[in-house]
């Protein structure tokens, strides 16, 4: 047995059973701890792991059995089995990470022995873990909570897109749910009714997200710049007035707006009529309904941007403007070459987030129009439905959980790609402004 092979032998031993490599390396206590960990896992969790993996792979095999109105055998609840299986997989990833660390540790200590260096005893090991691994130890509880509270639900929702979980034939516990691979996505793009609706709803969603974002940003910028001019009196008063829409709970104001837009009884048409303009079908004409939505969103959304830009404007040094005036630049030119580029550095990342948020602005659309006016050519969607409100209607009213989940996955991919490419190109997140 040559002295050169310690690292490999220790690593192989650790692969066979956690801690063996360390014991070979004469780190008995450390090895004992690793081994104890694996023993605990094997003794207490084997059943859970096997059951969890069986559950997520098969999604159960016995449906509910009843006799004379009583449940005799509760059967397997596919969706719960899927959740349990997912938790088991997350736990396994964690366990295998620890496994890998033990093998790596054995290998490294073996290397040290080959080089003839002194091996740490348990006290030194502990100290080195505490010193080197401190940040990792610190972040562990947060990481565990984050995995359970965000990663787990997201993956779980995405997984449903690959099953046939839907009303009326595949609802647990009475019936079992099965994995169907990419079928739901294929259906989404191949079935006529879905496809026609998807394209129409998707294009309006994009239009809505872009326009709503751009409108509020530029309205906010316009008001902020105007209010920052020296010629404007009572700036404080104007600013407070414009902040009001932001301060009122949106829920309430949207519902009030809905009544104001009413074609027959609404205040807006009555005002228009009183100055001789004929009534507009605010909520009944598809185009005007979209306009009404954008206008209301503008009213609700611009105060935030006004406040933001007001703050950014105060950071621009006055000397720049003075220098520009000396050079004979007009107000417009000053805006174009000084104000605009500077405020945009701050605004672009937020605009990306606003876009993503508006893309999924379910509450607003739902409260404002419920997706109406109806479109006879769509399946369960109206002219003003965005993707998410369409998903919402489908899931809630029709119990089509699987295909809804598939749409959600598609939406997520779109948003994620958009946000990724946009944010990658913004200066703000590169850490240097120039």
């Amino acid at each position, binding site marked *: 047995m040559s002295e050169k092979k310690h690292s490999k032998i220790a690593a192989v031993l650790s692969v066979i059973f956690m801690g063996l490599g360390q014991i070979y390396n004469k780190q008995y206590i450390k090895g004992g701890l690793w081994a104890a960990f694996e023993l605990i896992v094997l003794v207490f969790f084997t059943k859970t792991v096997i059951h969890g993996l069986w559950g997520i792979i098969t999604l159960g095999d016995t449906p509910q059995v009843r006799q004379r109105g009583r*449940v005799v055998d509760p059967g397997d609840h596919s969706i719960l089995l899927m959740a349990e299986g997912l938790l088991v997989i997350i736990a396994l990833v964690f366990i295998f990470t620890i496994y890998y660390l033990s093998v790596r540790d054995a290998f490294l200590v073996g290397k040290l022995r080959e080089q003839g260096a002194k091996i740490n005893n348990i006290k030194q090991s502990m100290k080195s873990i505490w010193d080197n691994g401190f940040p990792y130890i610190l972040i562990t509880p947060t990481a565990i909570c984050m995995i359970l509270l965000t990663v787990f639900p997201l993956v779980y929702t995405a997984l449903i897109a690959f099953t*046939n979980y839907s009303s009326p034939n595949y609802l647990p516990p009475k019936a079992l749910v099965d994995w169907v691979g990419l079928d739901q996505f294929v259906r989404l793009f191949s079935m006529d009714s879905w496809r026609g609706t998807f394209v129409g709803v998707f294009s309006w969603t994009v239009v809505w997200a872009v326009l709503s974002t751009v409108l509020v940003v530029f309205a906010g910028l316009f008001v902020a710049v105007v209010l920052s001019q020296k010629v404007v009196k009572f700036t404080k008063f104007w600013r407070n007035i414009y902040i009001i829409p932001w301060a009122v709970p949106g829920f309430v104001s949207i519902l009030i707006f809905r009544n104001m837009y009413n074609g027959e009884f609404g205040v807006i048409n009555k005002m228009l009529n009183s100055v001789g303009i004929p009534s507009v079908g605010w909520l009944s004409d598809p185009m005007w309904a979209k306009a009404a939505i954008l206008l209301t969103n503008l009213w609700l959304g611009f105060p935030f941007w006004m406040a933001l830009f007001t703050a950014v404007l105060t950071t621009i040094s006055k000397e720049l403007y003075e220098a520009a005036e000396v050079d004979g630049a007009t107000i417009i030119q000053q805006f174009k070459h000084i104000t605009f580029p500077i405020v945009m550095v701050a605004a672009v990342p937020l605009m990306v987030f606003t876009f993503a948020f508006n893309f999924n602005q379910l509450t607003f659309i739902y409260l404002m129009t419920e997706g109406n006016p109806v479109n006879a050519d769509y399946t369960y969607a109206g002219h003003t439905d965005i993707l998410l409100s369409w998903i919402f209607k489908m899931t809630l009213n029709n119990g089509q959980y699987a295909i809804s989940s598939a749409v959600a996955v598609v939406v997520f991919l779109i948003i994620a790609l958009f946000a990724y490419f946009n944010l990658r190109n913004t200066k703000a997140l590169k850490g240097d402004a120039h």
Partner: protein
Amino acid sequence: MKKLLSIFLVLGIVFTLVACGSQDETEGNTDTGNNDAEDTATDFEVVPEEGAELTLWSDGDQQLEWATEVAAKFTEEYGIPVTVEEVTQEEAPERLATDGPSGLAADVFGSTHDRIGRAISAGLVLENFWPEEYQEEFMEGAIQATSFEDVLYGYPAGIETYALYYNADLVKEAPQTWDELINVASELTGDDTYGFMMEPANFYFQYGLVGANGGYVFGDNNTDVTDIGLNNEGSVKALEQFLRIRDEIIPGMKTEDITYDVRTALFNEGKLAFDINGPWAAPGYTSAGVNYKVAPLPTVDGTPQSSFSGTRGFYVNAYTEYPDAASLLAQFITNEENLLRSYEVTGALPPRTELLENETIKENPVSVAFLEQATNAVPMPNVPEMPLIWDPIHAAVTDMWNNKADVQKSLDNAVETIKTAISEQQQ
């Protein structure tokens, strides 16, 4: 600093593990307490389980008041503690899907019958243990509404349908026929007063006309989903009659402008003479000080309108640990005495045939009118395909109302959409 942090850390990890541990206790062999079900499956006697404790979900307001009262009586009689929680009847079936299997749902809950179909087809609801008795003692409509594939699941507690409210200051007596209603209403319509309006976008209220003309939703008493009658001759005729509201009373009004809120507000202000609405609207009209009366819906060509009826029922959660005690509670809630009390507290019409002859109910003209309408009512279908109906029909009626689209064509189109949706649901 590090020492302090390490203490916090250990605490933090312990908490995290404890918090996660409690989540993970869904081990393979969950015991749902159904072991005794096998023993009693042969001799079918319902005896409350030892140590049973029940939870009851009830709608809010007066419903909750009544449920709490009845739960207390039940505890007195059987010695079984009952906790009453407020969960609306619209929400309950949806919550059951998630809370039932995880053991967090109530043992007995109230639900409207048109929302329960999905929960029943998912196997989340136990059957009614005394179907023969219930079929004998309850209105047929209520039994039909709470049954699913010919098996009775529910314990009916209240039946509701809509009827014709009229403002007695504007109208002397209720019109008997649809023609009469349209004529009287068009005469009463002025600059800002209206005779009558109905929401085009609400098929629930339009169904009275459809049924009277021989239209139907699904064939074979609303159970055969392969047969949709919403574009047959009767349905087309019904919608043509419905469109007379637009042509003769309120021309130029768009679908989106006529909402439930608009018409109730107008009726409250005394600017609307007729309103077709359910018993739930009565308290609001009373508190607004409207001098209203209620009559059965006007007839169409001599046939009474078959309005949709909704039955509020109580159901037993399939995951209950105490199926017998829970079923006894559901039975107790819907016994004669308690349903009469329910009428006194909440105004809900009891679907027990005995109670229809009760003096307390007979003294109230509003209840009598609704009950009279209820005898002609058709229970809203409770099959899981029913939710697929509303949107396409709503779209079709909107198209005819706003854009004068052809009635037959729009309905054909809607039925096509519904059929596609149903077949796609089957996967």
